[in-house]
């Protein structure tokens, strides 16, 4: 569930800081994000989101696990074909039971290099989620122990959740259709 938006006091703290970069008011999150200079923290409908270059995902996951985020609750991807310059985005939801915190890491993934460092070495529970992303979007994860399709048949062509993959329709044929012509 959403965390509370930062109060007025925290906004002031951000304003007096010399650097323009904003950091969350939660100490655990701030400490986690600070070393990653390319990471950008935003609040999306009251939820903590970190925008991160995809190369740093594996590194960030290790730091997150050390900071108390025990679980990769969910990993998924979005296809922004025609909406954004960078086509895909891998979204990982990390959960900290200890701190009662949730953080969403979003990594843009270009269509010509759909390859992301795997979370499995840090969070083995990401295994099925990453296989699902590979199956549905064709994004591969480097360092994944078993990068195979999970839901679709192995000989399936294409990746169904891509926006340029049709929804699929079965042509209706009638027995008499051929005889009439």
């Amino acid at each position: 569930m959403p965390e509370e938006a930062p109060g007025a006091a925290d906004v002031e703290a951000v304003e007096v800081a010399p650097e323009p970069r904003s950091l969350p008011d939660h100490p655990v999150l701030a400490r986690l994000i600070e070393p990653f200079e390319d990471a950008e923290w935003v609040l999306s409908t009251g939820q903590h989101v970190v925008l991160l270059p995809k190369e740093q995902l594996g590194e960030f996951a290790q730091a997150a696990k050390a900071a108390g985020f025990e679980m990769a609750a969910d990993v998924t991807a979005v296809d922004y074909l025609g909406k954004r310059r960078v086509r895909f985005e891998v979204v990982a939801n990390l959960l900290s039971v200890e701190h009662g915190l949730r953080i969403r890491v979003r990594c843009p993934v270009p269509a010509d290099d759909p390859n992301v460092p795997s979370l499995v070495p840090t969070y083995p529970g990401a295994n099925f989620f990453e296989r699902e992303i590979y199956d549905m979007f064709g994004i591969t994860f480097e360092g994944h122990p078993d990068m195979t399709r999970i839901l679709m048949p192995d000989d399936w062509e294409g990746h169904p959740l891509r926006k340029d993959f049709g929804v699929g329709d079965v042509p209706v044929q009638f027995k008499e259709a051929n005889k009439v012509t």
Partner: protein
Amino acid sequence: MTDTQDRKTKEIWVSGTEEPDWPGPDYVAHATDEGAQKMKLHETGDRLIEQLGIRIVDDVLYEEEEIDEDDRMIINMGPQHPSTHGVLRLQIELEGEIVRRIKPIIGYLHTGMEKTAETLTFMQGTTNVTRMDYLAPLHNELCFSLAVEQLLAIDIPPRAQAIRILMTEMNRIASHLVALATNGMDLGALSMMMYGFREREMILAFFEKTTGLRMNNNYIRVGGVAADLPDGWQGDIEEFLETMPPRLAQYDDLLMANPIWLRRTRDVGVITAEECLAYSITGPSLRATGLAHDLRKAAPYSGIEQYEFDIPVGQRGDSYDRYRVKVHEIEESLKIIKQVLETMPSGDYKTDDRKVTPPPRKRIDESMEALIHHFKIYTEGFKVPEGEAYVAIESPRGELGCYIVSDGGSKPLRMHTRAPSFANIQAIPIMLADSLIADTIAALASLDPVMGDVDR
């Protein structure tokens, strides 16, 4: 697109029409081949350590003996097997009667609901998601609705929230009853099956009275619920609340005093809290290990924080504890339902935000604008502001999450469901490595996966 077109001509052939030109005799055989969905070749080094270095459950009963690699046998359990709770296929590497490796293979029930969701409006979305976890349809609807409401930033009236809690907690009981019933049946306690379904019938009858349907209710919708509770609902709930406690005592008499049941569940399918967290396993399976993590307490939704209840936990994380946790969760849900019954607020059952809720029937007769408004909402759907939100609730099987990305239109750009069963399936290889094959069924039944939720 060309791929799709190509497939159409190659693979879809309606019987009764002229047979198309197949690419060759091998093609058809290849289409049903399972291909790479096979267990990987055996590698030296331990599977778990290889993946993470997590402490392995010490199953002291079965010491590894020097057995030749060739003496191992790979068998398939499922996808057509009565104890796999649907179309789950387990590929098991056996050494005599001992399971050495196990790989769950899923996807047999995949229907592409996340793709379908992109073609449906936000208003139609609940019809789709309710079919995912078919034993807990109301939880799916609630999760989807909360995610959309998060983006819309609308307030839900207190009565609608209370109705949502009442219905989802009833649904939790119904789902746990099925889990207990099938768990009993898988281990030979067939009467448990009948008792579980007998009590579930009361809940489904109430659902039918309230929502019009026994399953796939499409009752909880964006903005509130579809209809108010029926007249005399208090009587039904009171009757249910009176019936359940003695019935739960009956289950205890039936199973807790049963030496066969105890032997088959105690210390079977053990999993630790650290393993659960690492492998994203949530719900009763996580709580059975002793970790009191429940999203109803950790991240309350829909006003559940105003009701008093406890989180039951187990100690050992075995099949027995998972069973006990479910029984106690039914008791806690009964407590919540009782409080909802006593404190049900009056008022609207859906939001009066005109952006989401169509004008009432009476206004349509009087006002042209109301008619147009009504027509627009039902044909075009309401628009949801651009953005993304992830909302998680506690479903009977664990963390049920819904991630919605909206581009400002009336249909989601992406709707992803974090299905608890899908993640929980990952527990099977950990729970069952180096255990007896008969324990596979006991452990799987206590994990309670729903294949509709796994494959979506």
